[in-house]
């Protein structure tokens, strides 16, 4: 079990390396978690958001350009 040994001895055994791995994992987790949740909500509320309907109601504003 080479990978298991490397991961355990290299990361999990020491609190310092474990903490660094957790913080890095939190950053990665945040990115993918936000993306997945946004996609799911968009799919769950399809057609109801402004982003879906903006083509029906064109407004000339600085934010649009």
């Amino acid at each position, binding site marked *: 079990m080479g990978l*298991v040994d490397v*991961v*355990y001895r290299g990361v999990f055994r020491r609190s310092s390396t474990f903490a660094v791995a*957790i913080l890095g994992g*939190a950053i990665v*987790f945040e990115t993918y*978690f936000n993306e997945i949740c946004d996609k799911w909500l968009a799919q769950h509320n399809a057609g109801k958001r402004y982003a879906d309907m903006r083509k029906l109601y064109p407004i000339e504003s*600085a934010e649009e*350009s």
Partner: protein
Amino acid sequence: MSFANTVRAPLGTASFKARIGAVSCLARRNYHTDIPEPDFEAYRSNSSKQANVSRDKFDAKRKVYSYTLVGGASAATVYMGKEIVQDLVGYLDINDAARALAITEIKLNDVPVGKSLLTTWKGMPLFVRHRTEAEIKAEQAVDLLSLRDPQHDSDRSLTPEWMILVGVCTHLGCIPLQDQGSFAGGMYCPCHGSHYDSSGRIRKGPAPLNLTVAPHKIKGEYLIVG
């Protein structure tokens, strides 16, 4: 166990001392010596049952499962804590509705060269002037030592063509008139006769400071003030 050798038993019977001494030779526990150590064989992992193998060799396989779960849960908890702190600190910021009210958008094509626009920003009058080449040259060439409030023209705008000023006279707060006064493209305050040049700097009259420059940025064909 030096403890057994040095203790002076306050109850002071020989049998008490002998019992303490005998126990310390056999087991590490000094109390509950009647309970046998339980048999944990059923709970041992397969990898730990190998005889004559150092525990270091199979530690990883046993522990990595638990540590992965702990690590994953900790990462999720760190993310939760970060979101909570971020939201709480974010409450100190102004909300989106208030921020939207504090912004004025102007379409740049509405103001041709040499013309001024009067509008409002955050309840104050806003002067937007599209300056001509001649005005820009004149303002950039002004000697700063001759000004009451010395400021170079290029410090007062992002681009020389667009002058965005708050239209409140720095003397006593009247609203100056645009394209009036002794200076080309400048402003004149009718209340007490302050003359501003096309860069909004005070030149003649009682006002002490230049007209305030409104913070702005140009995004595509729109000017966003505030």
